[in-house]
C-alpha cells in the first residue's frame, strides 16, 4: 500500500493560508482568507471582539478544522501533520472557568503537556521564566489571577521554541510593567532566534513599535496587511474649515469624518505616491496605529 511520507516542512518558505473559510453551524466566521506569514517577522493581529482573530490563529495552527481552504507550511499541509504542527505553537488565552480539563491542571502539568508537542522545548528557559514571574509549578491554574494566567501562556509560547509562535492576547491582565517586560522579552528572543511571532492584542499603541507588520481583521476578512511603519506614516489626521478640508481630501481615502463646531476633521490614508495638496489651509497631524485601527474599523467605514 502506498503511504504518503510526510517530510519535515521547510519553515523558511513560510506559513500560507489560502481561501480559509470557517463556519460554526450556520454562522460563517471567516470568509475566505488568504494570508502569507513570512519567516522571521513579528506580526500584530488586531481586530474588534468577534472579528475572528482566535479562530484564525487556531486554524493556522491546525488546532481547529477548516471548513474550506488550506494551510501550508513550506508547501506541506499542516492539518494532521505532526511534523508541521511541531513547528507551530498557538499559546491560547487561558480561562480557568473554561475547559474543565485545563482548570484542574497545575502549572507544571500544563507546561509538561505543551512540552510534549514541541521537540525543542526549552526547560532552562521555562524555569527561568517561572522564577522571573514568581510562579510555582505546583500552583493550580484555577487559583491563578488573569495576569498570572497570561504569564503561563507567555512561558508556553517562549519555551516552545516553535519557529511559528502565536500569542493570543498575551498582554491581557498584565500590568504596565509586566507588559513592557513581555515586549522586551519578545524582542530579545526574536533577536536571538529569528522566530516568527503573531501577537493579537487590544492594547495597540504599546505594541505598535514592536510589530513589523500589522494585520487588521474585520468581520472575518483581512482589511489590512501592511508594514506597520509604512501604514502609520501613510495615515494623517487633517482638520480645518470644512471647505478647505473637503478640497484637500478630494479623491483621497477618507475615514472617520467628524465635525467639531465650525471645523471638521478626518483621517486620510494616502496611497503610494499620493500627497496632500500644499495649497490648502489645513492642519496635518500624525495618527497612531490605534487611531488608524479605530478609524478603519468604525461602523460605516469609509466616510463621505
Amino acid at each position: 500500500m502506498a503511504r504518503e511520507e510526510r517530510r519535515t516542512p521547510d519553515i523558511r518558505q513560510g506559513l500560507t493560508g489560502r481561501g480559509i473559510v470557517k463556519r460554526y453551524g450556520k454562522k460563517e466566521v471567516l470568509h475566505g482568507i488568504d494570508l502569507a506569514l513570512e519567516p522571521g517577522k513579528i506580526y500584530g493581529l488586531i481586530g474588534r471582539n468577534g472579528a475572528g482573530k482566535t479562530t484564525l490563529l487556531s486554524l493556522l495552527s491546525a488546532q481547529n478544522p477548516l471548513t474550506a481552504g488550506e494551510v501550508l507550511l513550506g508547501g506541506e499541509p499542516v492539518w494532521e501533520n505532526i511534523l508541521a504542527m511541531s513547528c507551530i505553537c498557538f499559546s491560547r488565552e487561558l480561562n480557568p472557568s473554561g475547559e474543565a480539563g485545563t482548570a484542574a491542571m497545575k502549572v507544571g502539568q500544563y507546561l509538561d503537556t505543551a512540552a510534549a508537542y514541541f521537540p525543542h522545548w526549552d526547560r532552562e528557559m521555562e524555569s527561568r521564566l517561572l522564577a522571573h514571574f514568581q510562579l510555582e509549578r505546583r500552583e493550580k491554574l484555577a487559583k491563578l489571577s488573569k495576569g498570572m494566567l497570561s504569564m503561563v501562556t507567555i512561558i508556553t509560547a517562549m519555551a516552545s521554541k516553535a519557529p511559528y509562535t502565536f500569542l493570543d492576547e498575551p498582554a491581557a491582565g498584565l500590568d504596565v510593567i509586566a507588559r513592557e517586560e513581555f515586549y522586551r522579552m519578545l524582542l530579545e528572543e526574536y533577536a536571538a532566534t529569528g522566530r516568527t511571532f503573531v501577537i493579537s492584542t487590544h492594547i495597540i499603541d504599546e505594541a505598535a513599535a514592536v510589530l513589523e507588520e500589522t494585520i487588521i481583521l474585520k468581520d472575518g476578512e483581512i482589511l489590512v496587511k501592511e508594514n506597520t511603519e509604512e501604514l502609520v506614516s501613510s495615515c494623517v489626521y487633517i482638520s480645518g474649515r470644512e471647505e478647505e478640508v473637503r478640497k484637500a481630501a478630494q479623491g483621497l481615502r477618507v475615514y472617520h469624518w467628524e465635525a467639531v463646531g465650525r471645523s471638521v476633521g478626518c483621517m486620510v490614508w494616502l496611497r503610494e505616491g499620493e500627497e496632500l495638496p500644499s495649497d490648502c489651509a489645513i492642519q496635518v497631524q500624525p495618527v497612531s496605529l490605534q487611531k488608524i485601527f479605530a478609524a478603519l474599523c468604525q461602523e460605516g467605514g469609509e466616510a463621505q
Partner: protein
Amino acid sequence: MQAVLTQEKSIYLQIAEMIENDILREVLLEEEQAPSTNELARVYAINPATAAKGVNLLVDEGILYKKRGIGMFVMAGAKEKIRRKRRESFYQDYVARLLEEARSLGISREELIQMIAGQDKEG
C-alpha cells in the same frame, strides 16, 4: 541616547535623529562604534527592522559606515556633515514656524528681534 520616543514622528527617523544628536554633542565620537540594531531595539523596545531602517538612513547619508563582521561606526567628518545639514533646514524647521506663530499673535518683527537680542544678553 535615552531620549523618549514620541508618536509625532516615524520611529526610524527618531532613531536616526538621536544618533545624530549624540554625534553632535560628542557623546558618540568619530570613528567610534555606534550602537547596534539589536541594542537599539532592546533599549527602545522597538522592532529591529525599524531600528535598522534608522541606522541605514545614516549609512546612506554617509554619517555611519559598516565594518563587516564588527558593526556600525561613525564616519570621520560626520559631525560637520550633520551640522551642515541641520543648518540648511534650520530656517524651515525653526525660523519659519516662529515667524508664523508670531504673525498670528500680532508680534511685530521689531518685537521679535528685540526678544532675540534680549535673550542673547541674558544667556
